[in-house]
């Protein structure tokens, strides 16, 4: 950012972030809850494709708008629910279950769409478009939606019974059972919620692009996860930072753009992204616990 002042002084670049970040942010927020509960969801890229397809198909074929939105959300809920059943009901570890489901639903989307992408330019004329991805002045409306959702999810995680249950489940599922939390039902709810959030991200993305791409969502896997981790949510569960993920999503999107704007040469960008990523996380850790550096020095001599 420091390297390219003229870029980051203009408002336009921020408006562009306010368009790109919302879908990623939605995913990151959902993942924050999932990870806080000690689980993981890798199936969301396929929700982005599947729900995006449902929406675009219903709009293009039947000119449905609000119903298409509902169908897309229901599709996401279905995928999430299936994940939940696999994880909570059958006991498949979530990393495996959701990975398999990513394959499955991604494949189903390709089959259903016949591999085609859809152009839904006409959607721009609908009220739906104005409500979700229109502009207030220069401000993209979707940024307000995700802001509201972020606040809601903060309260859900930190102030609601459901969120507390997730935190305890992530802390120790055994303890959670013993204190009377209906562990499995909460897990099913959690995955379903994640599916709905991903589906909403899919709709925002499809509306904004006015196009459904058969492969949409696949590039979001690492980015959304990285946003959560950069934000300081621990992979070990029992703790999740909605605020951290909020900023994490912006940071991860801005890193590459910032590097590009700063004029770093093509091939270097990715290596520098890796460095910035690890640097941010280490900075986090050291701020929280300055003893680490000493520990590191000690380690290289003899281990504790």
């Amino acid at each position, binding site marked *: 950012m420091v390297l390219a002042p003229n870029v980051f002084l203009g408002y336009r*670049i921020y408006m562009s972030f306010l368009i790109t970040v919302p879908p990623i942010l939605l995913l990151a927020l959902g993942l924050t809850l999932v990870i806080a509960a000690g689980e993981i969801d890798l199936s969301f890229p396929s929700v982005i494709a599947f729900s995006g397809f449902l929406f675009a198909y219903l709009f293009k074929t039947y000119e449905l708008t609000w119903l298409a939105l509902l169908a897309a959300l229901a599709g996401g809920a279905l995928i999430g629910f299936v994940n939940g059943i696999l994880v909570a009901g059958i006991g498949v570890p979530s990393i495996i279950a959701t990975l398999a489901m990513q394959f499955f639903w991604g494949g189903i989307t390709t089959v259903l769409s016949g591999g*085609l*992408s*859809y*152009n839904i330019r006409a959607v721009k004329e609908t009220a739906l478009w104005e409500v979700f991805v229109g502009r207030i002045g220069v401000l993209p409306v979707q940024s307000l939606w995700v802001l509201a959702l972020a606040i809601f999810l903060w309260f859900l995680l930190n102030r609601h019974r459901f969120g507390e249950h997730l935190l305890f489940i992530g802390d120790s599922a055994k303890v959670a059972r013993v204190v009377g939390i209906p562990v499995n039902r909460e897990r099913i709810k959690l995955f379903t919620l994640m599916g709905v959030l991903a589906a909403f991200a899919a709709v925002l993305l499809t509306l904004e692009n006015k196009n459904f791409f*058969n492969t949409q969502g*696949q*590039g979001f896997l690492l*980015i959304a996860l990285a946003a959560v981790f950069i934000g300081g949510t621990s992979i070990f569960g029992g703790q999740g930072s909605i605020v951290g993920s909020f900023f994490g999503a912006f940071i991860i999107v801005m890193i590459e753009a910032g590097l*590009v704007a700063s004029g770093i040469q093509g091939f270097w960008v990715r290596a520098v992204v890796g460095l910035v990523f690890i640097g941010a996380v280490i900075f986090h850790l050291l701020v929280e616990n300055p003893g680490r550096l000493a520990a590191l020095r000690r380690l290289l001599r003899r281990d504790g």
Partner: protein
Amino acid sequence: QSSDKPLGDGMVMYMQMGGNAGDGATLARTTGARDAAKAFGLQLIEQYSAWQPETMLNHFREGMAASPACIGIMGHPGSDAFADLVDEAREAGIVVTSGNAPLTELYNKHQAGGFGYAGVDLFTGGYITGKSMADQGLQKGDKALVYGLLSEAERGQSTLGLKTALEEAGVTVDYLEISPEVNSDSSLVVPILAAYLANNPDVKAIGTQHGGVTAFIPKALEDSGKKPGDVVVGGIDLAPATIDGLEEGWISTVLDQQLYLQGFLPVTQCVLSAKYGFTGLFTNTGSGTVTPKTIGALVPLIEKGIR
């Protein structure tokens, strides 16, 4: 000698399709190959490699193990990587033919055995796009962004062609590499290009040979406050969004590889060579660009995944 049975009856062909089932740079090839397979009555087995060269090599090994009549390969791993494998397949009597990226050395060696090529010369394709951009009003000393995949040796050839053509026209070229995330999900390109445009307000042209990226350039321009025609844009492939871009004037020129032919022709080559021993044909499937003026007629076909 002809009979009631179709020409390819009883034949099996393993064919590498490129990326992932249904992605923009793959779909029309699949459609073409399926149509040809239906027409000739042969059994087509599709292999998708996510553009990974080492997967293409493995797919070849697996295909060879099934002793099919023919194998259609992608050129990405290069002649040297394929050389021994193709030799082996030829010894086993399997017809091999290629597409998308030329394998000149192998073509020269095995042409007599039916080794053909259907595709553009990648460098030339890029070069044509660059020329076409230069023709749309770029001046000496103008600044252009080339956004490509030089890190992938074969696919990078088209980027190189693009860059060369622009440089020959006296344009100053900035190069940016496409990251794997953008490669698989092009919507992520928008903030990156927006940032570039904000930092380089004087840029006169953007060129890419990535189909997904092409489709999103109009959005990036729009978000950056540009108007159609402010920036000369050259791209590739006719995704629905790209057509929009052309129609609205955001995109100035697009290379049409005619991917359908890259599917149809290798199957044809296979049947003809396996049945009648014809030699390999070298077919350039695309030397033309599509511009806002010529797009109209193509739209219906594109929506069926043919063009």
